[in-house]
């Protein structure tokens, strides 16, 4: 029997010809990413070496990436002090892939990694962030781990005790209609699978809708694969992967593609027809509580959020600007936009999207995670409702358990900004 993409990646990373589903392996790590929680990783890393007489040594500083994004610029002295400690550690240990709070090279980790060409097909990528699954968009096996597990990776250079996961095939036929996006596709899929429906499994995406999808959309799909509990999402690398790496990530060295073998074992295959898809909304307070936008249209919204590692890329911002063109953000509703990186921010400026959105009434913030994780830059009042292109709507997610969060695409978010209520973007701006 052949191997799925994740099996092939793990075979390569363990120097074996074949790995079987369920066996336990210790793959070499190609890229190990952390954000502000590097402060905890550092603490645990130093703890490992206590009493050993060994000098704390990172196995390969060139394979570590640290990106500040969760609280940028720092919202509190405590965060600022954590960030300061991380900077000192980075300098002392020669970590070069460090992205500080900067307008040129900063941004959200799940955009900074791909746009700098750090992620390649066939790699093993671990990150102390659950949305590390994003990087499966480039054909890597990328999964989230905790801080102590990362400390162990820093010391040993491989992930320990990884069970080779089974794979669920996702076959998407047809073409997405106008104003229906990869976000709608992944929301519908999470609704179908359920919040824990893919736990300990990988989602491997196939079909004409996936082949036609740019890497930005594939990042959205893989990003939210974890919302079905999946260990990872993977799009087998193809000519679009090469295009992205060459044209958008500036990669000039060889890129080796990795496809699944024809007789690879899929535990099951879920089939979706993109051409029949409608805009979707995940309702409070779970991501799998998904309904067509038409069934929640008219719900009053106080805050619109466009951005995040899910939907803060240039095509997301362009779509929002297009849907809002000639309109204004409704009074009583506020709209906050967070580009996913400084580079995207500059591209959005050059294309005129930032000016358009601001003239419509939106506030365009610095690149970063913004209010997605409930720390700053957009707290909700008691009883308020947010409609957001982010990835989670758990109770209290945006910082206030007395508020509600709905999740949607940039098109639905922008259309709803103009009306102040949840709105189907296909209706030409009518709620």
């Amino acid at each position, binding site marked *: 029997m052949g191997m799925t993409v994740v099996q092939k990646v793990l075979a390569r990373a363990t120097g074996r010809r074949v790995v079987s589903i369920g066996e336990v392996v210790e793959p070499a790590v190609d890229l190990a990413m952390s954000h502000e929680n590097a402060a905890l990783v550092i603490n645990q890393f130093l703890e490992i070496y206590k009493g050993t007489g*060994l000098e704390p040594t990172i196995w390969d500083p060139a394979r570590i990436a640290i990106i500040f994004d969760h609280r940028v610029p720092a919202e509190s002295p405590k965060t600022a002090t*954590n960030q300061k400690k991380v900077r000192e550690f980075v300098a002392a240990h020669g970590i070069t892939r460090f992205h500080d709070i900067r307008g040129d090279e900063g941004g959200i980790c799940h955009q900074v990694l791909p746009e700098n060409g750090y992620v390649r097909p066939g790699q093993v990528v671990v990150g102390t962030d659950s949305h590390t699954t994003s990087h499966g968009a480039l054909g890597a096996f990328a999964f989230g*781990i905790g801080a*102590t597990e990362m400390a162990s990776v820093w010391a040993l250079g491989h992930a320990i005790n990884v069970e080779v996961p089974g794979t669920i095939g996702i076959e998407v036929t047809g073409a997405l209609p106008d104003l229906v996006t990869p976000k709608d596709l992944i929301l519908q899929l999470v609704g179908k699978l359920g919040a824990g429906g893919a*736990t300990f499994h990988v989602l491997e995406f196939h079909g004409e809708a996936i082949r036609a999808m740019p890497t930005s959309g594939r990042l959205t799909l893989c990003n939210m694969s974890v919302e079905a509990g999946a260990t990872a999402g993977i799009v087998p690398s193809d000519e679009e992967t090469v295009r992205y790496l060459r044209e958008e990530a500036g990669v000039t060295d060889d890129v080796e593609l990795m496809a699944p073998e024809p007789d690879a074992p899929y535990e099951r295959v879920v089939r979706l027809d993109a051409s029949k898809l409608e805009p979707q909304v995940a309702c409070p307070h779970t991501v*799998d509580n998904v309904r067509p936008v038409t069934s929640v249209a008219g719900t009053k919204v106080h805050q619109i959020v466009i951005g995040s590692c899910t939907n803060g890329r240039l095509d997301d911002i362009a779509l929002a600007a297009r849907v809002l063109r000639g309109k204004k953000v409704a009074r009583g509703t506020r709209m906050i936009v967070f580009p996913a990186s400084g580079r995207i921010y500059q591209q959005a400026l050059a294309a005129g999207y930032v000016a358009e959105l601001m003239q419509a009434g939106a506030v365009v913030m610095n690149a970063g995670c913004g209010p997605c*994780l409930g*720390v700053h830059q957009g707290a909700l009042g008691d009883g308020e409702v947010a409609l957001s292109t982010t990835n989670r709507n758990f*109770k209290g997610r945006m910082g206030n*358990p007395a508020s509600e969060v709905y999740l949607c695409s940039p098109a639905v978010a922008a259309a709803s900004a103009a009306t102040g209520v949840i709105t189907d973007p296909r209706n030409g701006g009518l709620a």
Partner: protein
Amino acid sequence: MSKAKVVLALGDDVSTDDIYPGRYMATVLPTETPQFAFADHAAFNAGLQGGGVAAGSVIVAGRNFGCGSSREQAASALKGHELVVVAKSFARIFLQNAINLGLKLVEVPEVAAAEGDDLVIGLTEVTNLTSGRRFAVRPLPAARQAIMDAGGLIAYTRRRLTRSGAA
């Protein structure tokens, strides 16, 4: 095996935002995180802080406990109070964080228990003394046994390093 009281009973899909809200994520040290365990469940958190919850007390939950963020604070905060989590199933990253930090998790696919119930947690089954019902325990992934046996991931990795250092 001693009796343990259920101090919190929850449903499916309890997220790490629920266990440890994002606004406290700048607090990272395992010595400091326990104060924010279930911070938005004010009465329960107050009970934990006031010392009214005995070590070994049980949180019972449904499927997919610990879904969402990879934040390790969710596991270290519960570990700090020496709580035990009995759930129908666990989300992957939370499960691994718990094992890495030595937080006791018990997967019991059919568990039914209410706050105030007394449980006896065995290796292969959980008995609810209050209802008289018994439920089978699903073993944790064997791949993680070595970490549990070592007393957590820090000790496990330390041992691996010193062994290779000695070789």
